[in-house]
């Protein structure tokens, strides 16, 4: 067993932490940094729920030790929003009902992100291949594919998010109680 001081840049922020050699990167992100948007779904690098971007590439963070990430740049699902504005991929998954339970979704989005960064208009087969290392048990993938297509179109400036935000938005009560 050994311990190591590592320095990683995660979602644009530098972190210096001491980790045990065997700590998996996914556990480092989830438990040390509290970034629980990255999930775990298998033991065998099969499911991709833990997919993040390492130096701009999609990788499975369950199959890397945290020490290996020393000096590298990491982006997780938590690093996609720009303030309150969702990334087009996040918007696309909402628009096209690309998620159900949401458990695979961060991994799917992080697998799709490098694709859209290198290909402005991927066809269906290209998208399916890009996410072929990511398992989803809810959707049957069809609406994930259209979500990614929607995001590509949004990045090309061809579509924008529809109607009002359907999230609950709290409005303070109108006035003092009257009786």
């Amino acid at each position, binding site marked *: 067993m050994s311990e190591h001081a590592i320095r990683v840049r995660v979602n644009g922020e530098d972190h210096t932490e001491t980790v*045990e050699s065997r700590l998996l990167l996914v556990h480092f992100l*989830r438990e040390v940094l509290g970034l*629980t*948007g990255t*999930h775990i*779904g*298998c*033991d*065998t690098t*099969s*499911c991709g*729920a833990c997919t993040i971007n390492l130096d701009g590439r999609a990788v499975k963070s369950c199959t890397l030790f945290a020490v290996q990430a020393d000096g590298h740049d990491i982006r997780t*699902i*938590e690093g996609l*929003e720009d303030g309150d504005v*969702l990334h087009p991929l*996040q918007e696309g*998954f*909402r628009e*096209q*009902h690309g*998620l*159900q*339970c*949401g*458990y*695979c979704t961060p991994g799917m*989005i992080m697998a799709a992100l490098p694709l859209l960064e290198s290909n402005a208009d991927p066809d*269906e087969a290209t*998208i*399916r291949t890009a*996410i*072929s290392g*990511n*398992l*989803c*048990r*809810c*959707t*049957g*993938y*069809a*609406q*994930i*594919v259209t979500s990614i297509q929607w995001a590509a179109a949004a990045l090309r400036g061809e579509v924008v998010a529809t*109607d009002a*935000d*359907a*999230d*609950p938005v*709290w*409005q*303070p*009560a*109108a*006035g*003092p*109680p*009257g*009786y």
Partner: protein
Amino acid sequence: MGSIGRPMKRVEDRRLVTGRGEYVDDVPAPGALHVAIVRSTYAHARILGIDATAALALPGVVAVVSAADLGAANGPFPHPTWFPPHPPLAKAVDPFTRPERIWLLAAERARFAGEPVAAVVATDRYLAEDAARAVIVDYEPLPVIATAEQALAPDAPLLNPEWGDNIAVHFVIGAGDVDQAFEDADIVVRRTLRHGRAICTPIECRGVVAIPDRRSGDLSVWSSSQQPHWLRDALERTLRMPGDRIRVVAPDVGGGFGLKSMVYPEELLIPRLALHLKRPVKWIETRRENLASATHTRDQVHEIELAVDRDGTIRGLRDRFVIDGGIGSVESIVVPYTTACHLPLAYRIPTMRIECTVAVTNKAPSAAERGAGRPEAAFALESILDEAALALGMDRAAFRLHNALRIDEMPHDHGILYRDGTPLRLDGGDFRGDMSDALARLDYDTWLAEQAAGRTEGRLLGIGLAGYIEGTGVPPFEAANIRLDPSGRVIVSVGPPSQGQGHQTTLAQIASEYLSVPVELIRVIQGDTYAFPSGGGTIASRVIVVVGNAVAAAAIELREKILAAAGDQLEVAPADLEIRDGSVVAKGAPDVSIALTTLAARVTPGIGRMGSAGPGLEARGGFQPPTVTFGTGFHAAIVEVDPDSGLVTILRYVVVHDCGRLINPAIVDGQVIGGLAQGVGNGLFEELIYDEQGQLLTGTFADYLIPRATDLPTPIVIHKETRSERNPLGVKGVGEAGTVPGAALMLGAVRDALGQAGAGLATVPVTPGRIVTAIQAARAAGVPVGHAG
């Protein structure tokens, strides 16, 4: 504009796409201890002793707990999800079924490889896993019952010696004089069909976090569960602690599909350890544990025969099927009976006799998972229909159309009982129309020609055809609370949790429809026994039917209260008021109005004055389903089989689907397409394989394959809306329907592609290995590959 019927974006999604979901592994539990479970390495063994000395000496280890340490608290307890047949069914059919029991940890015997034997509690999961490997269990191997066939052999070793045999469930149902029908019919076709053992594997595995409250001694439990209320009840019994002191929450749940509808030993064990150690305790399942120890499903062998006349008319159906139940059919007759009573689908089958036996073996327990016995029924029936059409020399589609029930024949009584003991009466749905629509959308005739042309070039194209019915919205009844808050927001609380079905959106749409309050201002709280104390779980495609109608009833009652309260304030008769744009407005006099926020504040306890609406703008509604309501539909697909690799490519997939009134079409699409993916998985990929020693050979996702994005096409989905007359909303459940025809469809399509060479294919998943084996056997016998017949 009403909210029902709109493909609204989901209110759940902003959290989930930004990584702010809270699944059980994300629940904050400061200072939690972590559990690693020592699981039996033998399928069947006596446990002679457990030596934890070495484990206890390892760093971070707090405790190692075995059955002996727990004493009476270890059980056995009556299994929380086992229940006897409904009295009317018991009276009419009298199914034989044996009560199941549950132990927190295996006591004298381990009964399957993967059964929990001891729990190691440590300050960190890595350390707990280190220590779990240092626990020495002294096993004396016992004879293994590796298959249902072995279990039913006369000299079989017994899983439960007190039973005297290995039969967990047995029953026979029937309609009409089937033996006479078989004698009278022109042709009888027979087939032995096997549906492999499967597991529905949500991507999030199971997990439990239990946190005792230091001050009160109460207990909070978070579990990745479809059944938090049943878990609360089970904890009440096993912990001997009043249920009102136990809060069970199903937080965001990463998929369920039935696997999380059972109450598991670990869900009883972790809270027990938390109470004992007076610390938060956490256990998150690994995928290997999940495949080995969560409930399995399917694994049926059908000996099915069909009697038909030369003109294609079905005279009768006989089926004997055996289920490998593993160590127990922990939901009693749910799966076996559901298979049996769905076997006729929506075909005109005047006589039938169906016999089911569930055998116990040394494998993980079995229970309902997506489809709950219906996929096996569709698999058996649609496969024998294909064989019958071939034997008659009839086109498979024409044969089906000839026997499919038309909408003008509804309601149709199959002459058997549903699982609730009521007559199985299909309540509408245009099954024949679904079929002809699917055939048209598929371009069936064009593909027949394409197939014939392909055969001359050695291309193996196959057409799959399979329909389904699904009894949905099973009792017990459900209730919902709804209230208008002075903030103007509407809060709906219900019992059953969500595992991705989008209830927080669809139930809000239903409430919105009746209250004219926008969905954005409606919040749905679910899956928390402290927020709503009762619920029958999110299972059996029941929530939109049973809970949805309860929400509608509650919303209607709240609307009446709002109008009554506004009537007081505005001095207008409630009948002359309506809710519009956040206010109650007098019809025809828009300036006579009161904002909902103002109204709520005026009549809310603590700040307002009690008027004719009573103590606050709050209502409760419930819905008791009379029995299930049937969804129907038909799937059709084209596949191409590579004869060298045995690989199957799905070229086209058409779904015609009728789940009554659509609340949110986008969500229904998602349920249907996600469902069919699991059906295709059953048909082509998924198989839990055990060896003769009861060891699971497909124990990781590297061996147990589930469909990937590259394995599936984008299907064509056509919705029809035959409203249910069995509930006010007119809805039918949709969660499982998409899965039901998949296995039948894939086997039928591959068998069709191979032609005569496919005659021996009778097992799903129909894998490359099985396909190439069939082709080799055909070639050896001089049978052409890819020629009709």
